[in-house]
């Protein structure tokens, strides 16, 4: 990147800026130190998980494991429902993401492009819904789920998380910015509204949909409070709830505790490392435009 842009700027602008000066060096050093501080807790967790148990409680602390071992991982996987929780988290996060995208795209299209009686009032009501914190709803929502028989079910965990007025709002804003010419052309060709949503609006909003999708997925995978409330059966728990539930049962085996933390955090760290560009751009699109 730098190699491409630098010659261009030096050619165009009059005074040539020095490539390396004191502020530049200081900012790089500062940035790297800050990054190191932010990485230490993660590395320390990984480090601990690779130690044999007795080494974790030795003082003074050892920096690197003297004889790295995967015993803690073996122990965690052998004794628990960890794999089951991975499965549950995957099912829940995929369902929440798919349904949120489906329902929100349709609603955003309806609010952005169609006219029907009560549209403005309903949109206002939805915007007001953004103000309702999920924490306020846990008690009545749990009662409702008990009444519907959805406690300890995937639908019980998933459905309340699909209601995301913010996502509808962000998508509606984005749709508002798409020129109507494309739709009009499609309509001339005989496309129905339904076709227009999937063949015109969705392809044109790929970046924002990817952003909404990634953030919905992260949110659903990591959601603690609601799955914690609505599941009591360990076999229905997601990773965050399950790990909290067994926190005590590892006792003072810190290598195992850290192994479970590493396993619990790894999937999304990998996803983030792979899709960093989309995540970074997505926050910008959603945050600045919304």
């Amino acid at each position, binding site marked *: *990147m730098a190699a491409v842009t630098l010659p261009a700027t030096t050619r165009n602008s009059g005074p040539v800026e020095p490539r390396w000066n004191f502020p530049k060096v200081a900012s790089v050093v500062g940035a790297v130190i800050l990054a190191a501080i932010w*990485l230490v807790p*993660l590395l320390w967790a990984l480090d601990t998980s690779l130690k044999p148990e007795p080494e974790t409680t030795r003082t003074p602390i050892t920096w690197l494991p003297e004889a790295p071992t995967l015993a803690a991982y073996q122990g965690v996987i052998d004794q628990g429902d960890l794999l089951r929780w991975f499965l549950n988290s995957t099912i829940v996060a995929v369902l929440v993401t798919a349904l949120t995208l489906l329902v929100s795209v349709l609603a955003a299209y309806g609010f952005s492009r169609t006219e*029907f009686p*009560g549209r403005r009032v309903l949109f206002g009501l939805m*915007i007001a819904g953004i103000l309702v914190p999920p*924490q*306020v709803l846990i008690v009545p929502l749990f009662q409702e789920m008990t009444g519907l028989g959805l406690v300890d079910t995937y639908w019980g965990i998933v459905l309340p998380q699909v209601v995301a007025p913010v996502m509808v709002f962000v998508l509606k804003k984005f749709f508002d910015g798409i020129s109507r010419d494309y739709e009009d052309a499609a309509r001339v060709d005989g496309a129905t509204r339904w076709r227009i949503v999937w063949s015109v609006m969705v392809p044109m909003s790929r970046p924002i949909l990817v952003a909404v999708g990634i953030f919905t997925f992260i949110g659903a995978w990591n959601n603690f409070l609601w799955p914690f409330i609505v599941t009591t059966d360990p076999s229905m728990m997601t990773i*965050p709830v399950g790990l909290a539930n067994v926190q005590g049962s590892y006792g003072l085996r810190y290598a195992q505790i850290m192994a479970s933390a590493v396993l619990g955090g790894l999937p999304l760290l990998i996803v*983030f490392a792979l899709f960093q560009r989309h995540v970074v751009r997505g926050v910008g699109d959603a945050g600045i435009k919304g």
Partner: protein
Amino acid sequence: MAVQTPTREASGMPTRSAPSETGQPWKERWAGLFFVAPFLLLFALFLLWPTFSGLWNSFFNTSLAGVRGEFLGLQNWREMFGDPAVWSSLKNTFVFTAMSAPPLVVIALVMALLANRQGLLGWLLRFSYFAPFVLPATVVSLIWVWIYQPGFGLVNGLLTAGGFAEIDWLNTENRAMLAVVITTVWWTVGFNFLLYLAALQGIPAQIYEAAAIDGANGRQKLFRITLPLLSRTTGLIVVLQLVASLMIFDQIYLMTDGGPNYATRPIVQYIYQNGFTNYRIGYASAISYLFFVIIVIVSVLQFRLFSGRKEVR
């Protein structure tokens, strides 16, 4: 802001807006509702309904899920205003917000300024700053409880190695909140960082080039160009952060369980305890509504400030 206008509409009486467009076939007029219907159905079932049933519950002595108790009128509400635990957990919530929000905004800004236009190094910086944000609360809490561990935890290991006295972070009343705040800043600052980074990347390079021609130095560029141009983003981040901080529950519940001696228990945990430990659904609902009102007041005040600032510019 666009957010404000419709909100005001919603609170007013629903006026029959759409003046039936002449000759429009019935099917066309209602077609839009078909697109909005799936969302509205879920919205009504899992947001509107519990919002209102919660308010309704707060007037009853409901103690078990599914069984509505006797009518109490405002008794739950009166009890709430006289309950010292409500006030102390509200205080904890505000203290947490006051301690966590400023560093979450300032450090995010510093990170964005440092990571902007760093070429290949930028990838590593973005990864490091944002990575904790993608971890579940439980993983974050497990890691930090281990770091704060007395004796052989990382922090106390370093303190004792350096000849200092160790601190039992999570079990000391005036340290526990600080410990939770540090954890929270580490965990969530990445989101604000990305918002700032996106805003920085949206500032056209020509502005800086023009300033350089006028002889502006780095300091002047920062204070006269960058920071003023970021003020809108700062407003947005402050609004989102204050509301997010007030909703604190997960990491406190997992790290200190509200202790020691309730010194860190936030209002959401008190709601949880009343609803799911003491099974006092009605009372928990009343406190939920107090919390709801506080969130709405803070959000509305913030939006006012925020949109006011935009008009000045």
